[in-house]
């Protein structure tokens, strides 16, 4: 089966055709925003990092920014630097060049102030947007799709309806040769043994268990019991008592496929099928990591309701909570509450979600896109220096 997408010079395919303005440092964020503002087809990345991160954090920032630039949902990139930052805009550019897409750098200190940089940036981006608009969608096999999964604002309906239905949709995509990313390591606690059992090799199963152990010990070192911070108050009001309970409901959304690979934050999968990315449970950091890893589309389940989106990948919101659907219709794309009423099977709901994934991949605009939700936050391990 196919979706209608944009083929890129590196062979990958996009579900969107954005021109992306990347501030290589927080200092150029405002300028980058001003450049993209009002230009149809252009989006900017609300990045505040790029200076002050050292060691592994610097690596993560660079990897994430480069990952957004190389993501196939992006047609061309303008990197906006300030001029004295630790992570130079040229480093970002260098990471994007191998994809064969157009990438340019402008630097505020060199151009001479914000106004001149905005004017120059707008000229460049406008031209990129005009070029992007000439590209047309073509049939792309679903095997080229990497679908990200996420659940935020879970309640009892998440584990009963929306996550199992998304899981059924994921199984359909994997059957088509596509890729599905499951993540949110801290929300695997209590269910990690089930995922580990599905790993292709015992070593990979251990990678899953090690990832969970890392998060638990990291939290312990900071004096926090992860199980006291999660579930959140809204989860508890919604009927979820313990983290294990939340996790067991969570992993349904990955379907039943064997686990093919375990990857680190913002890394690209090298295998198709179900892949686990080790990320925080923080929704925006998690979404950011998956999109940097090449995800072109996201399915996001919620019980209590959630407005989040990403700057370049469409996010489809799914709820099994009827009240939430009716209260937050401007945020939620799909309602699967009939599963709870026994009027629709999980398989049927999963097929509906799968069809929506194909429609959205082919250009249908999601609620989060309509609302202009462009949430972005890079995972950091340590303090800024």
């Amino acid at each position, binding site marked *: 089966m196919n979706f209608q997408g944009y083929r890129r010079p590196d062979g990958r395919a996009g579900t969107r055709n954005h021109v992306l303005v990347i501030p290589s440092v927080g200092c150029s964020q405002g300028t980058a925003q001003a450049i993209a503002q009002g230009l149809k087809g252009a989006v900017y990345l609300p990045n505040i990092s790029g200076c002050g991160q050292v060691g592994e954090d610097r690596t993560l920032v660079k990897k994430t920014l480069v990952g957004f630039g190389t993501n196939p949902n992006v047609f061309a990139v303008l990197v906006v630097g300030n001029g004295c930052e630790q992570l130079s805009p040229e480093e970002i550019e260098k990471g994007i060049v191998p994809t064969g897409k157009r990438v340019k750098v402008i630097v505020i200190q060199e151009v001479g102030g914000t106004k001149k940089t905005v004017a120059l940036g707008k000229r460049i981006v406008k031209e990129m947007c005009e070029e992007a608009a000439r590209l047309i969608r073509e049939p792309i096999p679903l095997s080229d799709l990497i679908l990200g999964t996420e659940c935020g604002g879970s*309640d*009892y*309906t998440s*584990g*009963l309806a929306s996550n199992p239905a998304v899981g059924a949709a994921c199984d359909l995509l994997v059957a088509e040769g596509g890729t599905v990313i499951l993540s949110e390591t801290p929300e695997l606690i*209590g*269910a*990690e*043994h*089930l995922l580990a059992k599905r790993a292709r090799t015992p070593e990979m199963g*251990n990678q899953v*268990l090690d990832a969970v152990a890392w998060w638990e010990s990291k939290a312990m070192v900071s004096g926090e019991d992860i*199980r006291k911070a999660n579930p959140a108050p809204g989860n*508890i009001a*919604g*009927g979820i*008592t*313990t*983290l*294990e*309970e939340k996790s*067991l*409901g969570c992993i349904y959304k990955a379907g039943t496929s064997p686990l093919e690979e375990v990857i680190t934050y913002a890394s690209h999968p090298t295998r198709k099928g179900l892949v686990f990315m080790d990320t925080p449970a923080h929704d925006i950091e998690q979404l950011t990591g998956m999109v940097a890893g090449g995800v072109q589309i996201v399915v996001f389940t919620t019980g209590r309701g959630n407005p989040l989106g990403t700057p370049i990948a469409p996010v489809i919101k799914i709820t099994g909570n009827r009240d939430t659907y009716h209260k937050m219709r401007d945020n939620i794309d799909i309602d699967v509450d009939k599963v*709870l*009423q*026994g009027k629709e099977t999980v398989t049927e709901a999963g097929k509906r979600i799968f069809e929506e994934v194909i429609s959205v991949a082919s250009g249908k605009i999601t609620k989060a896109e309509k609302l202009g939700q462009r949430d972005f936050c890079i995972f950091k391990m340590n303090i800024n220096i």
Partner: protein
Amino acid sequence: MGSKIKVIVINEKDNVAIALKPLNAGTKVSVKVQGRIEKMKLLSDIPMGHKFALRDMEEEGAVIKYGEPIGQSTAKISRGEHVHIHNLVSQPRGRSR
């Protein structure tokens, strides 16, 4: 009204059921457990989406939902009683590999 599903048991190993609507203490519910319909009376008010015990549980017993342990009881729990943060906690460390 009577035909509408009020409660659900996810897995046959589970010792808790979920209320699909708010249910008052004293409500009689029919629960399908391991293919059999069991009738029972709720001992507490159960908010929508919350759990109640399908059978009596000892203190420090495993609470099972989705066919897997979701934590342990901190008190004796009677059949039909609300199971939530007042009588259920996360399991301590030591999950085996």
